[in-house]
């Protein structure tokens, strides 16, 4: 957003150090949501926060080189399609819409898989939505 940010050495070094941990924490929240607090929504926001931090420090141009517009735009739709597609899959397998029991022979296994798919869809959509909105706002001042 601000080109002068690139001269702040401490910010650059610290953010480079932090970003991998933020991404890792987002993945932890995503896949550990079944057992602890968290889930797709929170994980998506944290995942996007890592990219937004990068964009704040290094500028939107560089952020766009890391994650181009077509990636966020396709992921935005991909997440929703994953969620809705899980529902369609359960329909085809003979159950109700989003009835995960039919996915596997053991109903709880089907529930686990269904929740995993659905939560990953939520996470992908939320992350790309946040990045998209940030870039749309921050990319204006030019």
């Amino acid at each position, binding site marked *: *957003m*601000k080109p002068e940010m690139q001269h702040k050495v401490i910010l650059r070094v610290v953010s480079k150090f932090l970003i991998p941990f933020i991404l890792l924490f987002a993945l932890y*929240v995503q896949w550990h*949501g*079944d*057992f*602890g*607090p*968290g*889930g797709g*929504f*929170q994980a998506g*926001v*944290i995942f*996007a*926060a890592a990219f*937004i931090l990068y964009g*704040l420090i290094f500028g939107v*141009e560089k952020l*766009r*080189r890391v994650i*181009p*517009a077509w990636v966020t*735009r396709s992921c*935005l*739709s991909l*997440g*929703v399609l994953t*969620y*809705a597609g899980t*529902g369609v899959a359960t329909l085809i397998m003979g159950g109700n*819409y*989003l009835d*995960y029991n039919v996915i596997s022979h053991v*109903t*709880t296994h089907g*529930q*686990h898989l*269904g*929740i995993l798919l*659905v*939560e990953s*869809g*939520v996470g992908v*959509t*939320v992350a*790309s*939505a*946040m990045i*998209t*909105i*940030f*870039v*749309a*706002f*921050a*990319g*204006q*001042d*030019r």
Partner: protein
Amino acid sequence: MVLLVFMLAVGVAIVRLRDLFAVVMLTGIFSLLGAAIYVLMDAVDVAFTEAAVGAGVSTVLMLGTLALTTSTEKVTPEANSLAALVLVLITGGILVYGTLDMPDYGDKTAAIHHHVVPRYLEKSGEEIDLPNVVTSVLASYRGYDTLGETFVIFTAAAGVLAIIGRRRRSRRTRGDDDDDDGDDNEETSTKEVSS
């Protein structure tokens, strides 16, 4: 209780301050205090969301907006301040009156604890077999609602793109052009450059 007093102080400060940069920071603090209250109420999932969205991302988005506009509030002549005060008092009074009916916090006899909540708590262990009942409810029992929420997020991002996404790209074609999506319409760029 202490947190609520802090929230009240921050809220008053937000209203009084003219420096919008400080106001954005204070709204972030407001959200963080709200998240702390949710933690005290054992609603960690909600607190997590509040801290990440309210205190984190939305603060950044507001700062991004401030970078585009000005960072001081325009002082408007206080013509209707009395009428506005009366209106606010009436609205606030109605809202407080509405809360009088609500059950106390942690009340065992509250209606919400006698409908589906006991069923979820008792049956989700064998039906879903996940330790976190919140995830079971959100993703499985209430899967339709979460699908709707995901569509809301999708629509929000699509709306932002439709309103300001295109103008941004056409404006970028003016100078350092590394845009490679190839679907720009460049007619608007000349109009935008002049601003």
